[in-house]
């Protein structure tokens, strides 16, 4: 039943992208045929949606790309799966990812690395698909981004804990939305770090992203962190009220200085700058802003996310479900600790083990105050930074203090990633720090629970210069808004998308 190829979907591929079978390694399971007849009256009739393999389904295994859950099938469907099916969507299958969502390159997977399907038009003409250079699709939702980029499905659901939707979306050149925390139900999503986990949406266009989001954006009593209907409506209205009903000429875009560090490659810097300049031509006001807690966000994120991960991973013990490595003959049955260690050592991958150790340490009685509590304080500072700059947020009266003359901004725009997709041979993910640094631009919105949308930027006009390859690989810009302002964020995303036409 589980196959590592997307053979049955290849007919969907457009002719200029000769992606075939196993070369992308996005799908880990193709959905069994659905008996239900299409219903044109349903909002997502005929739309095929792939699911990251951390989203529970009863008709397919949910491996989370972990040996621990290699043969695990959930006894229930995630709320998002139920909603998609009810809206007429066709669930295409399950998509590769980093084990339990931990990783930025989608190389930590029992299903193998995902290959970025992007191929520059100039190269596509001369180099056969199988011989092209293989680059990372990004992670952890690399399978979701690659499947959408390769046209293997119309849209995909991902998850995003610290950038797992936005980073692969940027690397693969698709739209990736991490909604506000609490808008899309997490019931049935395999947890990595509950206080940060969000279900993400990936699609080729903003319009399709929005279609999916509108179906999933509803209160779920099965998720205790699911926002109420009223708070959603209020937040959305507040965002549009402050931005004079979405007219480009009244849009105020914050450009946060901390998100354009000197380490950012010039080719990325220039493409984001060019996009901002075009938005300004359309009438938007660009406002330089500062989010001073940003440099501490990455450390705080890794402390908190690892702590929660160490807690959430404790259930994978081999006792109640999942992988169980039996005791070697002769081991006394009283050796409980050995039984746990044996199964967890074999079943969990190196990146997951590393984070369990980090998180376990930060929760020990001796380290708790200096690590976990300190990280929580930084998290609050990060949230306050954002609240200060947005004019729709409750703290907007503080805008004056932030040097904005009493007027905050509607959204922030900054690069989604510190680089374009790296070559798979060059990165194996074992150098933790290098991979972790890639999250520096995405974790602040996760810590603050804000909506963040990565939109592919138009190719730069620098083709023909020395580093041609690097210039054509996709670059994404992130649009970040106040909590619940998805509509405004998507509207700005559409303006960015329009620049490519």
């Amino acid at each position, binding site marked *: 039943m589980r196959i590592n190829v997307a053979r049955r979907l290849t007919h969907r591929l457009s002719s200029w992208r000769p992606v075939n079978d196993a070369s992308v390694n996005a799908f880990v399971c193709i959905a069994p045929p659905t008996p239900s007849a299409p219903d044109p009256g349903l909002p997502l009739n005929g739309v095929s949606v792939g699911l990251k393999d951390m989203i529970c389904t009863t008709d397919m295994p949910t491996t989370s790309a972990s040996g621990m859950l290699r043969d695990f099938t*959930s006894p*229930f469907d995630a709320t998002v799966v139920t909603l998609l099916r009810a809206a007429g969507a066709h669930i295409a299958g399950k998509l590769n990812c980093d084990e339990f969502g931990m990783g930025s390159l989608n190389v930590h997977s029992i299903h193998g690395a995902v290959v970025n399907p992007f191929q520059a038009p100039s190269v596509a003409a001369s180099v056969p698909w199988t011989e092209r250079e293989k680059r990372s699709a990004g992670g952890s939702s690399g399978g979701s981004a690659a499947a959408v980029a390769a046209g293997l499905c119309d849209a995909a659901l991902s998850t995003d804990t610290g950038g797992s939707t936005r980073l692969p979306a940027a690397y693969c050149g698709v739209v990736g939305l991490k909604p506000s925390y609490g808008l899309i139900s*997490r019931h049935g999503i395999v947890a990595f770090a509950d*206080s940060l986990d969000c279900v993400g949406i990936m699609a080729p266009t903003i319009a399709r992203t929005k279609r999916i989001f509108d179906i999933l954006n509803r209160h779920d009593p099965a998720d205790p962190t699911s926002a109420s209907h009223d708070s959603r409506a209020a937040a959305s209205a507040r965002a549009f009220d402050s931005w004079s009903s979405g007219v480009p000429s009244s849009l105020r875009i914050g450009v946060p200085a901390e998100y354009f560090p000197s380490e950012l490659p010039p080719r990325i810097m220039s493409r984001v700058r060019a996009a901002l300049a075009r938005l300004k031509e359309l009438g938007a006001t660009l406002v330089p802003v500062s989010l001073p807690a940003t440099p501490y966000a990455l450390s705080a994120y890794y402390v908190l996310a690892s702590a929660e991960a160490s807690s959430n991973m404790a259930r994978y013990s081999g006792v*109640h479900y999942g992988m169980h490595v039996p005791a070697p003959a002769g081991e006394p049955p009283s050796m409980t600790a050995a039984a746990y260690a044996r199964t967890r050592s074999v079943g969990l991958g190196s990146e997951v083990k590393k984070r369990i150790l980090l998180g376990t340490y930060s929760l*020990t009685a001796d380290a708790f105050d200096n690590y976990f509590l300190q990280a929580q304080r930084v998290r609050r500072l990060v949230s306050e930074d954002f609240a200060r700059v947005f004019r729709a947020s409750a703290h907007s009266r503080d805008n004056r203090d932030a040097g904005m003359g009493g007027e905050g901004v509607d959204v922030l725009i900054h690069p989604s990633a510190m680089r374009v997709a790296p070559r798979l041979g060059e990165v194996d993910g074992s150098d933790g720090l290098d991979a972790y640094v890639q999250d520096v631009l995405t974790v602040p919105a996760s810590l603050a629970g804000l909506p963040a949308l990565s939109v592919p930027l138009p190719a730069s006009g620098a083709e023909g210069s020395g580093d041609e390859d690097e210039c054509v690989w996709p670059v994404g810009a992130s649009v970040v808004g106040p909590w619940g302002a998805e509509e405004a964020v998507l509207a700005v995303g559409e303006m960015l998308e329009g620049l490519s036409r």
Partner: protein
Amino acid sequence: MLVLSCRPPIRLLARRLRRAFHDSRWPGWQVIIGIETHAQILSRQKLFSNSLNSGLGEAPNINVSPFDAAFPGTLPVLNQDCVDLALRTAIALDSKIQTRSSFDRKHYFYSDLPAGYQITQHYAPIALDGHLNIPNRDSPIRIKQIQLEQDTAKSVFDPHTRTSNIDLNRAGTGLLEIVTEPDLRSPEEAAGFVRTLQAMLRAIGASDGNMEAGSLRCDVNVSINSVGQPHGTRCEIKNLNGVKFIQAAIIFEVQRQRALLSNGYPVSQETRGFNSDTFETFKMRSKEEALDYRYMPDPNLGVIFITPERIEQTKQTMPELPWATRTRLTETYKLSEQDADILLSLGGGQEGSAVAYFDRLCKDRNPRVVFSWMVHELLGRLSAAKLTFADNPLSESQLGELVDLVHTGAITGTSGKLLLREILANPSQKTPTERARLMSLLSHDELDVDDLCVAAIAALPSEALAFKRGHMNVLNKILGWVMKESRGKADSKLVRERLVALLEQDRDA
């Protein structure tokens, strides 16, 4: 005068002090005890999932949701019924309900803990600073905190197969953890505390408090010190599930610690278990081996906000607390404290609580008469048959009618007891009056007391003569003849009156 009444005389104070610090079992030593009680919450569903709570004897692994088994993708949803019962408990224990409280995860690996953590309230419990008054003690026991938490699954070791079987029915059942300050000073006070707490939890419906079945379990902290010295090092005895085990464990522990200290050895802080066969405690782990539970705020459950309105509403709907019931029984019905305690200890049956049964019976009846029939006769009969009040087949109207039959003289007391025995032996829908008639117990039906008395005097001429000569005791023999002839149906008081009247009439004549 006022000053005097407020300050007990020195003599009394000294006696109280002596009692507090002197125990003939361990003269010169002071015993310090604190108790953590875990009471299973008597809600329909579990604390964070919608699976039902299980009763005793239910087949294993029946009431289990994916959340209870810690399946990936499951999330906790707080059961507000459990919160309400925690609020009732907090109010009954006179404690400060916290406007904001929250849940934390306590981590350890064990096969009866599917998630690898227990959700509890470590950093911000739902209530703090309570009090509970217990019998035979002037000052209340201070309650440090009340917290909500999950119960674990149950693992049962099968010695034949040498395997542990895990039953997830209990996994995720709500628990109330009630923690005292180290205020208890003797095994008897500890027992009194647990009994009082148990009665309270039952009265407010928060827990069935069944220690044998494990729905009420205690961890007891014990330390000893020489009188006048600072408190000693404490040892915690885990999982005691019976009041007598609690007392036995404390006594053993005091003697053990006393032996160590008397011989110059220190008591080391440790966690101990209790062997209910040998009545001894044994070492489980030392302080150094203690687990680091890595408490982490639960990222899913957020803050529980308790509004003053909710507290007020809970107060309005609180059932009567046992100590209020006790006062009512002694003041309204003039029962002795002992009798009130008997009623309170009876628990409930098909007809509701024993106290409610009593309350209904007392309408327009003499409470003492009712008490006597209910406790001495009915309960006496039941316990002779190894039954309890819970098995009582008599409706309150049946017992009431029986009491009335005797009270109005329609049947004699002796017949009443006979009737009760018959109803218990063969319960039916028939009224006691019908059954009394069928059994020919109704006094006025055919019995002529005068005829019998005349016959008796005629039958026992020498006794009659003796009485007339002043031997009053001989009357009992004549009375006995009448009772025997009437097969117990005659009213002995009436017979006595008639006999005396007839005999004195004779003498005068």
